[in-house]
C-alpha cells in the first residue's frame, strides 16, 4: 500500500517535472523557431512565388504572371537583354570554383599539416593565415587595388607594357583583370581553410603518428596515410559546402568595381545576383528574374551535392 502510494507520488512528481521541462524547452526555442519560419521557410517560399510574378509599378507591388507563367525562367536565358552574357557568367563562376577547390584545398591541407606538426614559425604563419579574416575586406581590396594600379601597373608601363586604360592590370575589360583577381582571391581566402583543417588534424591520435614514425614512415607518408584519411570527412564537407559558392561567390568584385555595369565581362553569378538585387523601385523589375535565376541555381547546386556525395561514397568504399 505504502509502496503504491510512494510510486504514485513519484510518478506525479516526475510528470510535473517533465511538464515543467517541456514548458521551459519550448520557451527557449519558440522565438528562434518563429524567426526560422519567417526568415527561412517563408522567405524561400516567397522567393519561389516571386519567380512567377512581375513588378507592377502602378500598384507598387508584385502580381502573378498570367500570359506567360515561365517568363522569368525564359528571361534567365535571355540575359543579353541586360547586356550580360550568361555563358560568360557561368564560365567565370565555374573557373572560380574549380580553382578554389584545386588550388585552395590542396595547399591548405599541406599548410595545415605544417602547422599541425608544429614546424618552424608555425605560430607566426598561423597568425598571418588568419589575418585576412580579421582585416576588413574593403581595406584589403582598396589597398590591393591602389597597389596594383598605381604601383605594379605603373612599373609595368615604365618597362614597356601598354594598357588600354588607367586601371592597368585591373581594367575590367582587359584580359588581365580576371586572372589577377582570381589569384588574389584564392590567396587571401585559403587561410580560413587552413585553420579548419589544422583543427581537424588535431583530432588525429598522436599514438597513430608515433607508431607510423617508428615503422619508418616519412612525413609525406604520414600526411597521406595517417592524417589525410582522418580529415577526409572535413575535406568532403568543405568541398560540398563550396558548391553553394559556385553560385554565391562574388570574388570580391563588388568591393573592386561596385555594381555589375562596371565589370560585366568578369562577373560571377554571385556578383550578378547581389548586384541586381539592390533595393529600390528601379530594381524591383529585376527581382522576379533574380528569384527565377536563383531557383534554377539552387536546383543545380542541390543535384550537384547529391552527385558529389555519391562520388565520395564510392571512393570511400
Amino acid at each position, binding site marked *: 500500500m505504502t509502496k503504491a502510494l510512494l510510486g504514485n507520488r513519484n510518478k506525479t512528481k516526475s510528470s510535473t*517535472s517533465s511538464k*515543467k521541462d517541456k514548458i*521551459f*524547452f519550448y520557451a*527557449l*526555442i519558440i*522565438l*528562434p523557431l518563429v524567426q*526560422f519560419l*519567417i*526568415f*527561412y521557410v517563408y*522567405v*524561400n517560399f*516567397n*522567393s519561389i512565388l516571386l519567380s512567377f510574378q512581375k513588378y507592377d509599378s502602378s500598384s507598387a507591388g508584385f502580381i502573378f504572371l498570367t500570359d506567360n507563367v515561365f517568363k522569368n525562367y525564359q528571361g534567365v536565358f535571355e540575359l543579353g537583354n541586360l547586356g550580360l552574357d550568361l555563358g560568360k557568367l557561368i564560365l567565370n563562376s565555374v573557373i572560380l570554383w574549380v580553382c578554389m577547390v584545386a588550388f585552395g584545398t590542396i595547399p591548405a591541407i*599541406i*599548410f595545415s599539416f*605544417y602547422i599541425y606538426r608544429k*614546424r*618552424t*614559425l608555425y605560430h*607566426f*604563419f*598561423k*597568425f598571418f*593565415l*588568419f589575418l585576412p579574416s*580579421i*582585416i*576588413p575586406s*574593403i*581595406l584589403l581590396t*582598396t*589597398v590591393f587595388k*591602389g*597597389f596594383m594600379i*598605381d604601383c605594379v601597373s*605603373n612599373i609595368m608601363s615604365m618597362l614597356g607594357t601598354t594598357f588600354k586604360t588607367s586601371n592597368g592590370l585591373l581594367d575590367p575589360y582587359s584580359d588581365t583583370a580576371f586572372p589577377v583577381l582570381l589569384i588574389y582571391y584564392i*590567396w587571401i581566402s585559403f587561410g580560413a581553410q587552413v585553420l579548419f583543417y589544422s*583543427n581537424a588534424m588535431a*583530432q588525429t591520435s598522436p599514438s597513430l603518428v608515433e607508431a607510423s614514425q617508428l615503422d619508418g614512415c616519412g*612525413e*609525406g607518408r604520414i600526411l597521406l596515410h595517417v592524417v589525410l584519411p582522418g580529415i577526409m570527412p572535413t575535406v568532403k564537407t568543405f568541398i*560540398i559546402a563550396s558548391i*553553394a559558392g559556385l*553560385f*554565391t561567390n562574388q570574388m570580391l568584385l563588388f568591393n573592386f568595381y561596385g555594381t555589375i555595369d562596371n565589370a560585366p565581362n568578369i562577373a560571377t*553569378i554571385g556578383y550578378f545576383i*547581389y548586384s541586381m*538585387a*539592390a*533595393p529600390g523601385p528601379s530594381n524591383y523589375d529585376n*527581382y522576379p528574374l533574380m528569384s527565377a535565376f*536563383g*531557383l534554377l*541555381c*539552387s536546383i543545380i*547546386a*542541390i543535384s550537384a551535392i547529391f552527385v558529389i556525395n555519391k562520388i565520395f561514397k564510392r571512393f570511400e568504399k
Partner: protein
Amino acid sequence: MMTKIKPIKPHRKTNPLYVAVFIILVVYVVVLLVPLIWGLFISFVDRDAYSEYLHNPLVLPTSYTFDNYINGFNDFQIKPLGSYTNQNIFEIVFQTLVYSGLCSLAATIVPCICAYASARFNFKFGKVVYGIVIVTMAIPIVGNLPSEIRVAQAIGTFDNLWLFWIMKANFLTIYFLLFHSIFKGVPMAYTEAAKIDGANNFRIMIHCIMPFALGTLGIVFLLNFINFWNDYQIPYYYLPSYPVVGTAVFNFSLHYERYGGIPQLIAMIFIVAIPIIVLAIAFNKKLMSNLSDGGIKE
C-alpha cells in the same frame, strides 16, 4: 636551490616538404604584407607628392604628413538615403556599434540557447531542431535576397537599426553545432544534482551548465562582432538610412577623388580598421588556440 631544467628538443631532420612549405608560407606573408605596408606608407603621403610618385613608382616618396588622417577624420561624413544632412564619424561609429553589437549578440545567444534546449532535454522536437540545422546547412539556397528584402520591408526590420538584429537571430549556423557538442559533453548528473537541490530549469541553465560554454560564447561573440564590423554588403542594402563604417568606406572608395585621392582614402580606411585589428591582435592567442587546436573549445 632548484634549477629549472630546460627540456631537450628532439632533433628533427630537415625535410624537403617542410622547406618547400616554409618558403611558400614566407612568400604568402610577403605578398599579403607588401600591399598593406605600401598602403600604410601611401596614407602618409600628400596629394602632390603622390602625383609625383605616380610618375616614378619605383621610388617611394620622401616627405610624409599626418594630414591625410586629420582630413580623413574630418571628411568622414556621409549623407544617408533620404537625408539632407551629413552624418559625421561619431554618428557612423555609433551606428556601427549598435549594428555589430546587437547582431553579434543575437547571432551568438540564439544558437547557444537553441543548442542548450536541443542537447539538454530529451524531447523529440530537440532532435528535429538539430535536423533542421543539418539540412539547412547542407542545402544551398541561392538568390533569395530579393525575397528577403521584400519580407524585411513588410515586417519592419528593413532600414531599422534597432530591429535589424532580428534577422540575424537564427540558429542555422555552425555555432549551433559547436554549442550543441559542448552541452552534450556536460554530464546529466550536474542537472540532476541541481534539481535535487531545488534549482529550477532557468537556474540550472544559467548557474550550472552555461559556465561550461562561457569561454566559447565570448570567442563566438568576438568573431561575430569582427564579421559584422567589417561587413558592408548587408547594411549597404538593408540599412540605407544608417550607414555603418563599412558602407561609408565603400562609398568613399567609389568616389575617392572627392576625398583627397587614394592616400586619404587609405588613411580613412585605416582609421576605422585599426580598432578592430587592435581588438583581434589583443585576443589573438585566445582566438588562435580556440579556433585551430581542436576547434573552439573550453
